[in-house]
């Protein structure tokens, strides 16, 4: 299965979305990410039982913070997919890329004059 998705996306693998912390998401935006998605297992199918539910809560919290600080919560989203849904994954990446293109560069990159540079690596 050779699925195509836009190359502007950087994938960061974690053992479980339960590992994704509020700080990881905020730092991604501080470093200039235009958009971030968290992709976890289907709800009710977490290997660690509730990791993806924690992730959902954290994503919602960060969306709220992004709205309040003027970055915009719509730049962050969470999706739940199973391992057999590669096609849907590629589709989501295409959709989100399109959405972020529509939103334009993040206010952080615009304000720091880095809007033309590639997105930096997140290293928290």
């Amino acid at each position, binding site marked *: 299965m050779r699925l195509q998705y836009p190359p502007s996306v950087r994938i960061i693998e974690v053992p479980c979305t339960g590992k994704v912390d*509020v*700080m990881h998401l*905020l*730092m991604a*935006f*501080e470093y200039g990410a235009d958009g971030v998605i968290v992709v976890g297992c289907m709800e009710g199918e977490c290997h660690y039982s509730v990791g993806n539910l924690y992730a959902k809560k954290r994503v919602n919290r960060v969306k*709220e*913070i*992004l709205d*309040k*600080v*003027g*970055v915009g919560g719509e730049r962050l989203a969470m999706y739940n997919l199973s391992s057999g849904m590669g096609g849907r994954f590629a589709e989501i990446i295409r959709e989100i890329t399109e959405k972020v293109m529509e939103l334009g560069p993040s*206010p*952080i990159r*615009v*304000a*720091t004059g880095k809007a033309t540079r590639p997105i930096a690596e997140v290293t928290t």
Partner: protein
Amino acid sequence: MIKAVPKPLEEVLDLVKDFTKVLIAGCDGCVTVCEAGGLKEAKVLASALRLYFTQAGRQAQIDEISLTRQCEKEYLAQLSDKMDAYDAVVSLACGCGVQYMAEMYNNKIIYPGVDTCFLGVNEERGLYSERCQACGRCILAETGGICPIARCSKRMLNGPCGGSDAGRCEINKDIPCGWELIYERLKTLGQLDRFEKPVDPKDWTTSRDGGPRKIVREDLRI
């Protein structure tokens, strides 16, 4: 332990929006346990403020730190060589920590970053409830180990009132009737005789009513 909740982000933004150098100071004590003001919360708040200033096109220095306890001078002293670098500090400690920091750094603006709520327990993660009002004269021995001052909405010493309904308080069905809990526990302990003995008016001088309180322990002081 002391329980607190983070202040709404917009309230903190409003406090610090006119500064350019701000320190977010967490506390590793009580507020860390209830996830309101520890190092992690300090990092999140600092990051949020950085995003805010950056998107607004403002150069700002927002740093975070967390002290072992902000209610002790020794730990607050760790900030002494850092304070000059900042216009203001947002302390995520309880009200005690915020005030003690302000007392120690008299010329510095110190803002609270959490709302201090009560003395309570961790029922589970994210669920904290009040148990003690620090009245200064504990009566738990008489009330089956359940405090009517903290747990009855009318702090009655001779409850329950007529609003107790199916074990719930009249003001909110989510609040268990403190006096019904006391009655049941006294029954379990075989101490129901205590229930019918009127309790005299309380001496509130050791509570907030006696003015700001102080403990002087001569046995501990040099």
